[in-house]
C-alpha cells in the first residue's frame, strides 16, 4: 500500500447490460479527490446509465465501484448517500407536491437521525430551517420558499435540483446535465455556483455544453456506445481525433462542441 490518498471514485471494468445491449461496457475510471471531472459523449453513450450505476439505482452487471477506497458496488442509494455521495437528475426530480422550503427541508434532514422524528414539527428545527433558507439564498430562491415547483421557471427548477444534492454536504457530487435547457444567463449562474463549491468536493459532471465544461471541468472522459474512448485534460480531449470524429461527424454534434 502507498500513502497516496484513495481516489474519490474508482471504477473498475464496470459493465451494465440491458437484455443483449451493453449500455456501459468495461469502463474503468479513476477520479481523484477534489477533481472537477466531466463526462461527455453523444446521446445514448451510456452517461446517465453510468450515473445510475454509480448512485446505486442500477446494479452493475459486472465490475466494481470504490468511493474513497471503500467498495460500494452493492450498497443501496441511501447507504451511498450516507457515505457522502450526492447526485442530481437529468430530468429534474423534485418533490412536486411540496413547497421549495419542504423540498430543501427533506434534503437537509436526509442524513440526520431527525428524519425519523415523529413528535416534533419540522418547522421547529431552527438550525435545519436556517440551512434550508441559506441554500435557497445561494440561487435567489429565497423569496420562492413557499411556492411549489410548478410555479418555478425551468432555470429555478434546475437550481433547486442542484441545491437538493448539496444540502447534505456530499464529498462526491454527480451532476447530470445541470445546464440542460437553460438560458445563457442561467447557465452562468449554475457555472458560478459550481466553481464556487469547496475545492475538497469531488464533482463528476455530465454536460453537452463545452463552454460550461471549459469553465468547470479540468479533466474529461469521453464515452461512446457505452465504452470509454479517451480520458485527459479538457484541452487534450478536445484535440483527440476520435472525439472530433464522434462530435463533428454526428451532424448535430457540431453545435454541442461550442466551436
Amino acid at each position, binding site marked *: 500500500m502507498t500513502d497516496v490518498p484513495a481516489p474519490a471514485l474508482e471504477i473498475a471494468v464496470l459493465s451494465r447490460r440491458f437484455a443483449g445491449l451493453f449500455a456501459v461496457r468495461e469502463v474503468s475510471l479513476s477520479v481523484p479527490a477534489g477533481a472537477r471531472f466531466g463526462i461527455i459523449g453523444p446521446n445514448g453513450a451510456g452517461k446517465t446509465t453510468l450515473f445510475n450505476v454509480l448512485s446505486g439505482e442500477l446494479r452493475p452487471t459486472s465490475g466494481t465501484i470504490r468511493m474513497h477506497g471503500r467498495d460500494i458496488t452493492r450498497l443501496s442509494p441511501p447507504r451511498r448517500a450516507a457515505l457522502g455521495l450526492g447526485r442530481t437528475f437529468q430530468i429534474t426530480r423534485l418533490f412536486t407536491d411540496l413547497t421549495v422550503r419542504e423540498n430543501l427541508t427533506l434534503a437537509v434532514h436526509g442524513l440526520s437521525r431527525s428524519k425519523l422524528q*415523529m413528535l416534533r414539527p419540522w418547522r421547529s428545527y431552527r438550525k435545519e430551517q436556517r440551512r434550508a433558507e441559506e441554500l435557497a439564498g445561494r440561487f435567489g430562491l429565497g423569496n420562492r420558499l413557499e411556492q*411549489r415547483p410548478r410555479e418555478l421557471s425551468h432555470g429555478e427548477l434546475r437550481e433547486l435540483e442542484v441545491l437538493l444534492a448539496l444540502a447534505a454536504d456530499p464529498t462526491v457530487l454527480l451532476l447530470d446535465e445541470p445546464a440542460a435547457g437553460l438560458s445563457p444567463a442561467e447557465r452562468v449562474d449554475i457555472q458560478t455556483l459550481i466553481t464556487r463549491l469547496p475545492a475538497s468536493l469531488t464533482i463528476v459532471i455530465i454536460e453537452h455544453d463545452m463552454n460550461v465544461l471549459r469553465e468547470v471541468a479540468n479533466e474529461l472522459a469521453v464515452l461512446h456506445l457505452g465504452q470509454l474512448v479517451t480520458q485527459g485534460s479538457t484541452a487534450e480531449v478536445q484535440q483527440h481525433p476520435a472525439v472530433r470524429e464522434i462530435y463533428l461527424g454526428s451532424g448535430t454534434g457540431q453545435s454541442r462542441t461550442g466551436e
Partner: protein
Amino acid sequence: MNETRQPLARRALAGADVAAGPVLALAALAVITYFLLSGTYLSTIFEDVLIYAIAAMGLDFLGGYGGLVSLGQAGFLGLGAYGVGIAEVHGFGPWAAVGIAAGVVLGAAAVTAVVAVRVSGITYVIITLAIGQIMWGLSYQWTSMTGGDNGIPVTTAPSIGSFSLSDPQTVRVVTLVVFLAVFAVLMLMVRSPFGLSLRGMKSNERRLRALGYRTSAQRYLGYIVASSAAGLAGILYVFANLLVSPSTLEFSQDGYLVLMVVLGGLGSIWGPVLGSVVIVLFQQEVSIYVSRWQTLMGAVFIAAVIFTPDGIAGLLTAARQALHRAATRGTGAAPGPQQPALPAARRGEAL
C-alpha cells in the same frame, strides 16, 4: 363604494378569516360530543363514528401522506377486538386482556409490515387486502379459538374503583378521549420530519432515496402507526359492542374505511372523521328509511369523487382559502395562507 363601511366589512372578514378554522372545528366537536353523550340511540351511532374515525385517521396517515392505501385496516381493528375477547376467554383479567390485545396488534403489525413494505402502489393495496383477508379467514375458521361465526362475547370490562368500562357512558367518554389523543398525535406526526418524509415518498421515492432516506424504514414505521390506530379502535370497539365476530373485519369493513378516508379527504387526518360521520349515518340511519341505502351511498360516493375529488376536506379548505382571499384583497397581504397563486385546495393544510 361607501368609504366608512368598507373597512368595517373588511375587519369582519378578517376576523372570520382568523376564526373560521378553530370555530368550525370546535363546533363539529361540540355537536359530536352532544350526540355522543345524549343518552339516546344517537349515542351508540356517534360512538361508532369515533371508533371508525380512529381507524380511518390511521389509514389516512399512511394512505393520504405516504400514498400507501391499505385494504386491510379492518383486520387490525378485528385483531384488537379479538385480542381482548380471546384473552378473557383464557382467563385473563380485563386489564391484562387489553395489554395482550395491544401487544398482539403491535406484533402482528411488525411481522406483516415486513411483507407489506416491500411493495407500493396497487401491489400494496393487494398485499394489505390479502393480510386483512387472512385475519378474517382465521376469525371465521379457527373456531376453537374465535368461536367461529358466533364470535366472542366480552363480559368483563376494565375498571378502577367506580370508574368502569362496563358503564356505556364511561366507554363513550373514554372513546372521545382516545379519539382526541389519536387525532392530536397524528396531526403532530404529519407535521414532523417523519410526516414530511412520507409526503416526499409519495411525491418522488427515487429522489428521496438519493437524499439518504431508507424508504423501507419510513414505510415500516408508518405501517406500525396506521395499524396501531386500527388496533386501538378495535379495543374500544369490543367494550362498546360487547361482542366481536368475523363481520367486524370482513372485507366490506375494509371498504367502508377506505370510503371514509376518500369521501372525507385523503391527506388531512380530520377529513376522514367527517367521512366516518357520513358513512356511519348512512349505515345506521339512512338504512332505516331507504332499503337500497347502499345504492344511494354508491351514488353519493360517485358524485363526491367527480365533483370534489379532494373530499369534504378539500371543499372546506377551498372555502377557507376563498375567505382568506376575500379578507386580504387589497390589503397588500399575501394572497393565500398556504398556497398563494393556486385556486385548487391543497388538502388538509388550512382549517
